[in-house]
């Protein structure tokens, strides 16, 4: 149907564009030089991956830890009016709310007396797990379904295509919201459902690429020499759609991270782990007085999505022959 309109779907000639023989380091250097935007995206992504991996080391504090200080102003038995005039008098121990960035708390503390820096650092874990995990699920699922679709063609293909059409006819965020509400909202489930919601796009991308390769001369040649369908798929078609897989993988990550942030913002995200979307929402009420939580969490979302998008764009430029060399 509409795949003809998708600019990313193009027949591919030679997929091994990042020349393996020269060594990874040199092609990386060439990539950085040739694609400065993509290169900076790569740096951002690598930084975030490091932060996520080392979260336990650089966190400085447990993200759940609640900081308190003794309250010298504590007064027993306060009245409503006294509390209204000075809400702090009611508790012998004060939660360290809304501390400014600096000192022991690099990014300050939130309303609950927790360290924002450690939450942002741990939020990177969730975002990366969500982005990469959902993308892997979507690409692997899309590959399997796309291959089946192209392999069997006919009625199976038609049915799969209609189901894909169905998923695409429902707004992505709505789909994700519905899916994630079905099961308990653990990180694993949210990642799984995001990947499932993303299946429509990857299936469509991969299917058309498989179709294109299937019609190419070397596949016809393999068929002539009597190779089985399965063998053709695995040995000839698969290596030739790797570039599309990489594109499909990389362009989705940013979208999944944003989708997770969005549902967390709406209060329907994964539970039990610091989430940037949820932090933006939590800090929004007092944005003008205590902007730090919202600013840092929102900034982190923007930065990581930016990194993945830049990288994905550059990869597509490199892997997409229509734009290559232009």
């Amino acid at each position, binding site marked *: 149907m509409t795949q003809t309109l998708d600019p990313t779907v193009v027949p591919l000639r030679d997929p091994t564009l990042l020349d393996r023989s020269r060594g990874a380091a040199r092609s990386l250097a060439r990539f950085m030089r040739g694609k400065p935007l993509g290169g900076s995206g790569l740096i951002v992504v690598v930084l975030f991956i490091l932060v996520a991996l080392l979260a336990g080391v650089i966190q400085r504090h447990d993200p*759940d830890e609640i900081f308190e200080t003794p309250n010298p102003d504590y007064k027993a038995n306060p*009245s409503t*009016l006294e*509390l*209204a*005039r000075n809400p702090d008098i009611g*508790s012998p121990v004060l939660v360290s709310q809304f501390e400014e960035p600096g000192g022991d708390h690099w990014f300050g503390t939130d309303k609950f007396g927790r360290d924002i820096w450690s939450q942002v650092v741990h939020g990177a874990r969730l975002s990366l797990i969500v982005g990469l995990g959902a993308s892997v699920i979507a690409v692997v699922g899309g590959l399997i379904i796309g291959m089946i679709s192209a392999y069997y063609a006919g009625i199976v293909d038609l049915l799969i295509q209609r189901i894909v059409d169905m998923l695409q006819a429902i707004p992505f965020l709505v789909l994700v919201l519905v899916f994630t509400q079905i099961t308990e909202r653990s990180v694993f489930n949210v990642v799984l459902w995001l990947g499932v919601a993303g299946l429509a796009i990857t299936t469509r991308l991969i299917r058309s690429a498989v179709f294109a390769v299937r019609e190419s001369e070397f596949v016809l040649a393999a068929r002539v020499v009597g190779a089985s369908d399965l063998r053709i798929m695995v040995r000839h078609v698969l290596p030739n759609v790797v570039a599309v897989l990489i594109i499909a993988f990389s362009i989705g990550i940013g979208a999944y991270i944003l989708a997770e942030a969005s549902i967390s913002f709406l209060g329907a995200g994964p539970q039990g782990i610091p989430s940037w979307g949820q932090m933006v929402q*939590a800090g929004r009420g007092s944005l003008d*007085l205590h902007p730090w939580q919202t600013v840092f969490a929102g900034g982190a979302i923007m930065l990581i999505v930016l990194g993945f998008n830049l990288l994905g764009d550059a990869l597509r430029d490199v892997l997409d022959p229509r734009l290559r060399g232009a």
Partner: protein
Amino acid sequence: MSERSYWQRMNRKRMSRRGILRASARAGVGAAGLALVGCGDDDDDGQAVTQVQQQQQQTTSQAQQQAMQPQQQQAMQQQTQQQADAQAMQQQTQEQTAEDQAEQQAMQQQAMVASTKKYGGWIVEQSANVYETYDAQRTVASPVLQVLARVQSKILRFANPDTGDLVGDLAETWELPDSTTVVLNLRDGVSWHAEGPGANHPAAAAGRALTTEDIVWNIDRQRNKLLTSGEEAGNFGRSAYWGGVASIDQVDNSVSLNLVEPDATFVQGFANEFNLINQPELVGGTEDQYTEVDASKVIGTGPNILTRWDPGEGISAVQNPNFYGLPDKPHLDGWVWVQTFQDPNAYRIAFEQKQVDSMTDPDPNTILAIHDDLIDETYLTYQGVANTVAIFTPSNKAPWNDLRLTRAIDLATNRRQLIQQLHNGLGKVSGPVSWMQEAWAIPQGDLETTPGYRVDKDADIEEARALWNAAGGPELGQIDWVTSELWASRAAWSATPGIIAEMFNQAFDTDQFNGITKPYLEIIPSWIAKDFDPFFSWIPNIEIPDARADMIGAFTTGAGSNYWDVSDPYIDETLVAAKQELDYETAYQMVREVQEYVMERGQFGRSICYNYIYPWIGYNYNKIEKKTDEEGWNFLAVSLQAMEHYLDLDDPSAATREAPSPVPL
């Protein structure tokens, strides 16, 4: 010095409120009490009169103070002084300073200002989103009341919802000839709305005078749970309360209710906001469509006439020209409710740009920030929230039926820390009876040394940890602590699941606790099946200021809200006796003993934590009725607002917006 005297002045104020409460608690049974709340009852029996005289003798030493009181308050003050405990009383008399006099003068001046209330104007507020029915008797959801309590009347209403002070509404006066009889003398000249969509409904009897039959019909349908079709309906929310009526007699313009058993809490129930009086013709005639909310099915005898009720779009009401309180009350031309803002920032935008006249937000910081921005134009009011926040442990099933574990949880619950984290300190800890039910609660000072509430939290935690370890808590594996999604959906509280889990993890030095959220959709069925997960949330347990009903509902064998299957002969006997006890002091002692008994057992898993205080912000022109300058009411007081609310359009802050365009009559 100034702070100290300020503190003591506050203390005195609280004391007097407490005294009023005690007085009104007696109002349930004795005419002396009724005289105090000013309902103009003439049928004093001898005993009550002597009581008053005795009190006067006892309190003559405080004549100096009485001289400064308006007459009505004088009598109340006397009782206050008499009943307050000795130490506080002493302190109080010592603190009769010039400052106090000045304050009381200020209060009198305020009262004079209040009498110059202005008339006219429209108020715009946010409405709720879901209205499941227009029949208040068949719902347990309070948003309906925000609309209906301005349109319909009750038998009595609260003059002061916190103390339980009553005034007549449809019944002008009431009498209590003996401990099981209540006589209601209906007000003359009350008629059903003569205009508006409801009056135009074919089934309605527009403009008809109110009769005793109307009252009887309303009580009968609720206590018998019967619809006019003869069908039984299970959803009469107050059927248990009205079931306390054994029979009804009508004499002239009076209705006499004979109670099944002596019930000292019964009269307050007339003023329960849910107990609105429906018109038999209209509500009875549309019972088959009772879930289809629409202005045309609503008729009342109240100060306003509903002109529009389109949930999600708009609701409006205009002044009832035939209301019995006119020309004094109500003051406003009408009300407009705009649809709910799903996003707190949209609400804020609407308020800051004067598209609505008032605002509340779960996050006090938001309200304070707005007030800082608009310091000259707005004022703050703090009001208690009757939805009590609690930690629920399913003590009716393993492993929590080991009360050591339940008590460990109760002890480890860091109530003051939660108030800090979730409400910025705006809240007070509550025992089994909420602090808002002041006449019945254990005083805050006493709670400070009660295990679970101790100021020295380390002692609580040490005890909790010992119990936890002794009962095999560490072997329980992962424990999911549920927070309702509705609670966590508010930005200010969104981190609640995490901080609850962290609170217990820190207390027990473990990482077993894990915070999750679930929607009410899942939670409610599990509660009904009494198979619920450990839970943190609010419960709407308070409907009237008298705490006995709530305690009986939660802790007596087989009671409606006893989700923990508590069955303890001592509690059963004591609470039932307390309910029938006519003497306040005795009843209070009984309830207090039960509270202490319950607290020693980890509150049986119903670990009441606190009631928080909500900041409410309004523009200076928006004159809402409140307790004091800054303090609002603890309890839902819609009917009070319907009568007393007014707009001062001469105030510099007055909105320049055009009058909203409600559906005209």
